[in-house]
Structures are given as structure tokens and as C-alpha cells.
């Protein structure tokens, strides 16, 4: 017959109201392999994973684990059968301790031996090299550490199939490598790992096989070494790569210096140390640095998202006071927050309501945007940004990550800002949408909008920014322009090798 697979999924169908999310998708996983599951947002990766973990019930198809057909009723059921998942967004409880998060829902008895659990948790943490104590509240850890705790939890459950859904999106390089070591270790012990990510380099660094999905259908399964990166991208987005290359050719950046739009001196907040910053009209600049270097905190201070504690701010040369978000908005500043789910979308409200929200706030409570007007706005931006949604009244929470991000972009574009701050606008979204967003940033700059762009992918920033502010340990340690805008120089500055 056929060779023995660890996991086979055959002809999986999953339907949502108005959308066929999966259409006869096949997927196979062998013992001890790392299998990358690739595709754009909305390709069906997350849906396939959720079918496999019992979050969704499939509408058709068959799942076999070690040759035996099985039905997965719930995530708990999946765990019991040896399928563990670490999701893209952290799904642990921030108000419980690290130890409790690792063991929650797994105890058999009513009585929990707190001390022994904590001891075991500490052992696991140190084995995996995770910088956290078992007794500390999960919410007090950084996003990266929270993610690693989630992985520790899955690893500790002696799973046969481990699913990592965008596990690296909030980890820095060192942490990513540590995770890869762990993945290879698990692989050698025969665990099958399904790895979902948007970072192509990581796919090639660690995976053995790649399955590509597009629009809910299977494109194909390939050996990683036999599929060049450029072909993988074209299979994912389903079109030729002229666009990709054309974008990177827009390297030459405008040299003409326009007047300064925004200028801050010694700006500080409860989260950010004092720093100086300025941006010209139509300029695209960026903050870069490792996770926790203070790049997000700095832009939050500009927008007044955290309590501003000092410094002077001038817009168009006039001193202004920005102490809360609405002040910044009134001065033409828009801010797309780093954490889309927590700080961006209003999940249960419709695409339309999410799009008009910021404009409505600026108009004030007593000038509501009429229904027909808001519908026109929504339709316009759904078209301009190519937002994939069943209708403008669909709750935004049911859209895929990239489309949610576009909705938030639309929200800010609608306010016609002079200055737009984009903090990780491309995190966790697919290649196609990433390109669209980068193009949009360049187009906005051409129209005279200033943009501050933050991304953990240096390449992306080099492509869009004409000036990079480098941060380390919450201080600005360098500013790169012109000739210095290259990967090596950025890395050097981040690492402290300048001088």
C-alpha cells in the first residue's frame, strides 16, 4: 500500500457562511519531520490547523493518525490524542503564573500540589532556556517569553504532532535559534512538527518539506531543498514575481529635503526614555532595534499612547501638546498599533464600523457619520486596499489577519493624516499583503504623507525607509541614511559595532 505516515488528512472540506475555506485539501506528515505549511493570509492554513486541533469540525474528509482514522471533537480531545498546538496569538492566561499556565487543564485530581508543579515548571523552563520563573505572572513576561511558555506547555505534553502557528513572529533572532534547536531536538525524537510561518528564511533554515495552500486549495507538497525560495513565493501568491523585483528597484529614494513636519525634543513617557526625533514631509523613516529596545515605546510616546512625562513637540514649527491619542489625531497623526488584536480591531463590530471609527472620533460625538456616508467610505477602502471580506457588515474579527490589518490601515487613511506611524504593520501577514502595504507606504510618501515604519524585518525597512533610527536598550544609538542604509551597517549598529 502506501508508506506509513504519522498523520494524513485527505480531502478536507470546511465551509463558513459565504466562504469555502478549505476545498478538498490533502496534507501528510511523516515521523520526525518538520513540515512547513505555507500560504497567503486566507489561504486556509489557520483553518486547516483548527480542523486538525478540533477547534472547527470539518465538513468533509478524513483524518488518520498513525494509520487509524479518527474524529477530533475538541482541542482537549486533540491534546489527548497527541496533537498539541502553539497558536499565532498567545492563548494562555496572563493573570496566572507561568507554572499554572504550563499545567492548566491537565491535572487529573482536584488537588494541585503547587510546590511540585512549580519545581517541575522550573525544570522545563531551564531545560529549554526560557528566561522566566515559574512563580511569576505570565502577563508580566514579554510577548516573546509568553510565546516560549506556550511552546514549553505543548512540548511538555509528550505530543506526537506539534503544531507551531507563527511561533517566531514575536521572537528575536537569538530566541528563534533557540526555538529551532528545540525543534530539531524534538524531530530527532520522532515528533512530527507542522510549522506555519511567514518568514521564508526560517522555512529554509529548519523545514524538511513544504506544503503550499492557496485560496483554500492545495497547490502542492515539495521537498524544501528542491524548491527555490523564489518559486515558493510565486506558488504562494499565484502570480509571477515581476512585482516583487520591481518593488525592490525603487531603491533610489528622493533626496530633495522638504520642511520638517514633526519635531520632538527630549520626548519621554512612562515607558520611553527621553529621545529627540524629527520627520520631514513625505519622508519615510523607521525605528529599528531588537525586541525590547524601545522602538515601539518611542512611537507610542509620539502618539501619546502612554502617559507623556516630558519633552517639547513642534508640528510645522509650532509647539503643541500631545498627551493622549486624541490630541495626536487632531494634529494629523495616525498610529497603527503593534498588537492588532489587543490595540487595533474592535472584533465584533463590522468592517464598516471599524473603518470609520477614527474619523468619527475626530469629528466628535455630535457629528455622527451617516449610514450612507459610512457605507460609501467602507466600500471605497475595501476596493482601494483590496480587503477580502464577505461584505462591509461582516464582523472584522472573522477576517484573516492581513485583511484585519488592511481594515485598520483604512481606518487611518480615512482620517487623511499628515503623519502615519505604522508599528509592525506586516507582522503575521502574507507576502502578497506585505508587498501591498510597502507599496502603499511609498505611495503615501509620494503624496506628501510622512510615515514612520517599524518592522522586525530589516530588509523590509531598508526597502521603504530613507532614514533609520537604531535603538538599543531603550536609547537611540544611531541614525543611518544614504550609503549606510544596508543590512550589515544596520546589524553593526544594532549590535553596537559602530564607532
Amino acid at each position, binding site marked *: 500500500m502506501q508508506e506509513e505516515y504519522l498523520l494524513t488528512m485527505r480531502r478536507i472540506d470546511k465551509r463558513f*457562511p*459565504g466562504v469555502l475555506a478549505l476545498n478538498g485539501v490533502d496534507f501528510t506528515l511523516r515521523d520526525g519531520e518538520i513540515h512547513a505549511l505555507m500560504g497567503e493570509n486566507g489561504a486556509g492554513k489557520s483553518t486547516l490547523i483548527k480542523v486538525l486541533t478540533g477547534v472547527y469540525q470539518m465538513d468533509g474528509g478524513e483524518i488518520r493518525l498513525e494509520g487509524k482514522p479518527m474524529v477530533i471533537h475538541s482541542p482537549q480531545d486533540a491534546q489527548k490524542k497527541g496533537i498539541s498546538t502553539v497558536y499565532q496569538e498567545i492563548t494562555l492566561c496572563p493573570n496566572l503564573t507561568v507554572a499554572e499556565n504550563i499545567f492548566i487543564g491537565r491535572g487529573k485530581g482536584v488537588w494541585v500540589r503547587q510546590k511540585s508543579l512549580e519545581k517541575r515548571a522550573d525544570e522545563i523552563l531551564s531545560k529549554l532556556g526560557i528566561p522566566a520563573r515559574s512563580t511569576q505572572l505570565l502577563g508580566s513576561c514579554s510577548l516573546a517569553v509568553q510565546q516560549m511558555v506556550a511552546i514549553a506547555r505543548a512540548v511538555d505534553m509528550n505530543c506526537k504532532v506539534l503544531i507551531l502557528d507563527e511561533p517566531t513572529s514575536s521572537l528575536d533572532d537569538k530566541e528563534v535559534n533557540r526555538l529551532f534547536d528545540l525543534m530539531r531536538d524534538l524531530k530527532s525524537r520522532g515528533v512530527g512538527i507542522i510549522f506555519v510561518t511567514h518568514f521564508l528564511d526560517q522555512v529554509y533554515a529548519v523545514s524538511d518539506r513544504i506544503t503550499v495552500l492557496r485560496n483554500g486549495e492545495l497547490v502542492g507538497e515539495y521537498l524544501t531543498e528542491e524548491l527555490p525560495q523564489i518559486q515558493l513565493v510565486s506558488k504562494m501568491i499565484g502570480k509571477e514575481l515581476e512585482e516583487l523585483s520591481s518593488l525592490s528597484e525603487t531603491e533610489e529614494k528622493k533626496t530633495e529635503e522638504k520642511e520638517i513636519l514633526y519635531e520632538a525634543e527630549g520626548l519621554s513617557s512612562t515607558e520611553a526614555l527621553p529621545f529627540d526625533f524629527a520627520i520631514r514631509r513625505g519622508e519615510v523613516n523607521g525605528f529599528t532595534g531588537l525586541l525590547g529596545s524601545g522602538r515601539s515605546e518611542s512611537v507610542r510616546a509620539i502618539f501619546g499612547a502612554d502617559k507623556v512625562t516630558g519633552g517639547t513637540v513642534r508640528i510645522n514649527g509650532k509647539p503643541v501638546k500631545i498627551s493622549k491619542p486624541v490630541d495626536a489625531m487632531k494634529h494629523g497623526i495616525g498610529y497603527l498599533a503593534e498588537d492588532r488584536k489587543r490595540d487595533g*480591531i*474592535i472584533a*465584533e463590530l463590522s468592517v464598516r464600523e471599524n473603518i470609520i471609527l477614527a474619523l468619527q*472620533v475626530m469629528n466628535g460625538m455630535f*457629528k455622527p457619520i451617516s449610514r450612507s456616508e459610512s457605507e460609501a467610505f467602507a466600500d471605497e477602502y475595501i476596493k482601494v486596499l483590496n480587503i477580502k471580506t464577505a461584505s462591509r457588515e461582516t464582523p472584522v474579527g472573522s477576517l484573516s489577519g492581513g485583511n484585519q490589518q488592511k481594515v485598520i490601515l483604512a481606518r487611518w487613511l480615512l482620517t487623511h493624516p499628515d503623519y502615519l506611524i505604522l508599528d509592525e504593520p506586516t507582522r503575521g501577514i502574507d507576502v502578497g499583503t506585505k508587498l501591498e502595504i510597502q507599496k502603499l507606504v511609498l505611495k503615501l510618501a509620494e503624496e506628501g504623507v510622512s510615515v514612520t515604519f517599524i518592522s522586525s524585518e530589516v530588509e523590509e525597512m531598508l526597502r521603504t525607509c530613507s532614514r533609520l533610527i537604531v535603538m538599543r536598550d531603550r536609547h537611540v544609538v544611531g541614525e543611518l541614511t544614504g550609503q549606510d542604509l544596508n543590512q550589515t551597517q544596520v546589524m553593526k549598529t544594532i549590535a553596537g559595532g559602530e564607532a
Partner: protein
Amino acid sequence: MKKTTKKFSFNGFGQLTIPLIAIALLVVFNLIRDPGFFSIGISHNSNGNAVLSGNLISIINGASELAILAMGMTLVTAACGGQDISVGAAAAIAGSVFVKVLKASSSISGVTVILAFLCACVVAMIFGSFNGTLVAVFRIQPMIATLILYTCGRSIAYWINGGATPTVTSSIVNAIGSFIPGIPVPTPVIIVVVMGILFWLLFHFTSLRLFTQSVGINGSAARLNGIDARFIKLLSFIILGVCVAVSGCIGVSRLGLINHETLLLDVEMDTILAVAIGGNNLGGGKFKLSGSVIGAYVIQMLTITLYAMKVSSTDVKAYKAIVIILLVVIGSPVIKEKFSRFLARLSDKRRKVSVKGAEE
């Protein structure tokens, strides 16, 4: 036709389905039990006015205070993700202020009544902002924050009138509690309609609905979009304060006296229940005022039905509880999801059949 089915399957089923089904079942049940149950007659009251009468009228009339409180409670629920359990006590305070001001004047004219009502309103709004401040500024859970006023409210009401239960004899106050001469519809019902229109205007001419829902669903995102979440929460409590004053004054006017111990006793739980039956998420977020109002009528109709069936007043609560368990379980997300899956399967089959038909 196609459009309606699409909308139907998209929403699973609408928020108002459960409360409307509940009303329909109660109506059918009553009609079977007593075909004349809902007959509306015209009778003459003690003032010699021709007025509408009958069970239906007394249900709609009797639910007035509850319906008004439910509207305000819906807003607080949506913004704060919690409920105000002090509305009954606060209504007693508002009612006491209303009577106190009326008693202070030598003769009661229309102007004095309006003045008294405004005083009651201001006091209720002050207590509302007290609750609202605890919730919005100090971030105390609404139920705990309002527990304070729930505990001490009726004592405060007691102090206002020096411990007495003064009566008010005035044709104007009487008209507010029963009928305005020449109008056959009970005045409290008219007040409910007016309040409903005021809320509709509020939502139509401001963006309060959008802001409240945003704050309720994702406070952090709302703040980063420039919405002052604290103000929105505080405002919801102040608006509830107005509703409290209105229902307190209706309650006083019905009896012509203020009894700080019994005025709108236990109404807070019925109010919360009305919001829940109306399909609103008690954890905040999206809301429908109409749902809560229908919920209020469901509760009142249930009570009247039970009384009409000669259930003793001590047993009524137990029977009410049974019906409410049914409503809440049917409206739960688990059952809703099962039902919409069932519907989806049904429409699938229909599609397959129609495809086959087309092939032939």
C-alpha cells in the same frame, strides 16, 4: 427571497429572535388557556374618563418602569461589561426627592411637578456619577461598585423624608401614574414611548452607540483611537441615572406616596434579566435596546400570566425561574451554534436538491 436566506444564515439568527419567540409563545399559551385573555375593553375610571383596560394593557402598563430601567441598564452593560444593581435603591432616593420637593410647595401645579422631577433627575444623575466614577476611574467591577448604593440607598431615601412615607394628593401626579384626562392610554406607557424616542434620537444624532460598543468590546483599542473610555462609561451611568429618576417618579405617582422600603423592590434583578433575555451580551459590547425592552415585557407578561393562572404570589418566583432557565439556555451560544449548523445543513440539502432539479 435569496437575500433574506443569506442574511438569516449569516447571523445564525438575529438577536431579537429569542425574546420575540418568548412573547409569541406566551401569547399563544394565554390564548389557548383563555381566548379572551387579551381582549381590550373600554371602561370608565374613578375620574369618569374613558380608558382602555384589559390584561394586555395592564401588562404593558405594569412593565413601564422595568422597560425604562432596562434601556439604561443596556447602555451600562454594553460600555462597562457589568451591571448596576443599585437601580431599585436609587429609584427610591429619586422618588423620595420627588415627593420632598412636592411637599415643600404649598400648592402643586404643573411647574412644581416638573421642578420636582428635575430635582429627582439631578440627584439620580449624581448618584449615577458616583457609581460611574467607581467603575470608570477606579476600575471597580460594576456589581461591586454599585453594591455600595444598593446597600445604603434605601436608608438614604428614608432620611430624605425623615422616616415617614408621605402621601401626595394631586390630580397631576395621579395623572402621571394612571391616565391623563381624555387620553385612553396609560401615561406610563406614553412615557416609555417618549424615552424610547429620546434614546433613538440620542443614537441617531450622536455616535454614542459606536463609541459605547467599541469601549465595551475592546477598551484598549478604543483608547488608542482617541475614545475617552472613562467618559463613555461615566456617561452610561449618568444616562441610567435619568432612567432611574423617571421610573422612580412613575412608581411614586402610581401610588401617590413614597414608600422607601417597597418602591421598585428587587427591580434590579428583573432589569438585568430583561437585558439578558433581550439577547444582549452581559459581558459588554454590541447591544440592542429594543431587545431589552421586549425582555421587560416578557418578564411582565410571564408574571401576569402566572397570576391569572391563580398561582400564589409566593410560588410565582419559582415558576418564573423555570421559564427563565429555558429562555437563557435556548439563547446560549451553544444552542445558537447548534441551531445555525442545523440551518446550514438544511440549506445545503435544499441547494443540492435544486441543483439536481436544474440538471434534469
